[in-house]
């Protein structure tokens, strides 16, 4: 095999790679924030006393977890226009990512909520808090603090999986990689570099999310210092 790697051919395109990486982070950040919101709503529905709500949320979670993200993406991108709703590749990609992350977050947040002891709600309502206040300030915050590591893992898997949205041409890192290799025919080098950038992005995300936790959950900081 007489192949010589020529990474210079890839680095020439560095502005595209940077833009792609930024877009990947942007897609992920939106999907994380919106997916977590969906997840909290989903978890509340899963624990609701209303049978119909429980069933809808349960069905949503099962459908998402048991079908590939790629097929979900195709349904959003190719399928939705058939119902009259035309989405750009980026819109379809972000929607699919939110739809997907929302279901996994639902299960994670639900587990967190179930692990907060009932006596916490009793203590809060005994002080005169409404059930909603008790849920938001006492149960949910504790639940999120507890499941934060699981959420972080889930978000990182989602960031990596977001490379799939290049399949419909949404402009993130992998799509830019595809574009570069179609111009310079250095596919191996291009995807090695893309892979390395993704690896770097996982560290960036871990760092940012750990930093965020210090503000979201001040207790950890206080206990670490003590």
């Amino acid at each position: 095999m007489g192949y010589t790697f020529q990474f210079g051919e890839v680095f020439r395109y560095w502005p595209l790679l940077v833009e792609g990486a930024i877009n990947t982070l942007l897609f992920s950040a939106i999907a994380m924030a919106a997916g977590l919101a969906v997840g909290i709503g989903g978890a509340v529905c899963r624990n609701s006393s209303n049978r119909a709500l429980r069933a809808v949320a349960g069905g949503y979670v099962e459908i998402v977890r048991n079908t590939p993200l790629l097929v979900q993406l195709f349904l959003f991108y190719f399928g939705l226009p058939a119902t009259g709703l035309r989405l750009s590749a980026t819109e379809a990609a972000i929607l699919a990512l939110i739809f997907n992350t929302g279901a996994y977050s639902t299960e994670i947040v639900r587990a967190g909520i179930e692990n907060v002891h009932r006596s916490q709600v009793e203590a809060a309502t005994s002080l005169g808090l409404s059930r909603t206040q008790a849920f938001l300030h006492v149960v949910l915050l504790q639940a999120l603090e507890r499941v934060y590591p699981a959420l972080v893992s889930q978000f990182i898997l989602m960031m990596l999986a977001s490379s799939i949205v290049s399949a419909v041409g949404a402009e993130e890192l992998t799509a830019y990689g595809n574009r570069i290799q179609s111009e310079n025919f250095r596919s191996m080098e291009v995807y090695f570099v893309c892979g390395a950038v993704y690896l770097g992005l996982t560290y960036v995300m871990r760092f940012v999310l750990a930093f965020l936790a210090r503000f979201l959950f001040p207790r950890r900081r206080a206990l670490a210092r003590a």
Partner: protein
Amino acid sequence: MAIVNLSGVRKSYGSLSVLKDVSLAVERGTVVALVGRSGSGKSTLLRCINGLERINAGEIVVDGRRVEQNEATLRALRQEIGIVFQSYNLFPHLTVERNVTLALSLVKKMSTAEGHAIAERVLNQVGLGDKIGAYPEQLSGGQQQRVAIARSLAMSPKVMLFDEVTSALDPELKEEVLRVMEGLAREGMTMILVTHEMDFARRVANEVVFMHQGKIHEQGPPSRLFVEPATPEFRQFISSAIN
């Protein structure tokens, strides 16, 4: 007029009858100790008073207001009734100060400054003014229980309920909690407590209520009850509680 009035209260879990026709009046400014074996219904009775348990029959009236199972009534009522639990039930993710001020800001809509002032006052009252910035898990059990008392106290309740608040504590930590409770009693707080501390009941309570098999079996001032128990069940209970 009694501030807490129970009449004909019945409570059952399925076929198990826990409270059988309990009537009790608690006068303002008095301390009532509920004693009895575990399973006699004393904790359930206490939890019925602030609506944590729904009663099946009878009536509970606190400060002229009927305890009913709807959220608006219960919320209003629970601002008047403080409760302290055996397992403290502090909010682990919040500082001591925020544990105390959470309900002040959410329920009483107080400003941060007002809340802070109250937190300082009640924490000093239980001897923990210096722990205002700590998190619950940084405190001993006795300190956590005193924070729980302060948290209730901050709401300026008219009645305080204590559900076996020293049972989870090591003997050396019980004293500090009991001292705080004794201080409250001296200041005229109306208190209803479920307790296994017979010495404390004898010393602090105005009225001792002995519960047996879901009923009030015997009741009266400790000076009489502990000296001349009228029923063999209570006599047996005291001798086993002391040994």
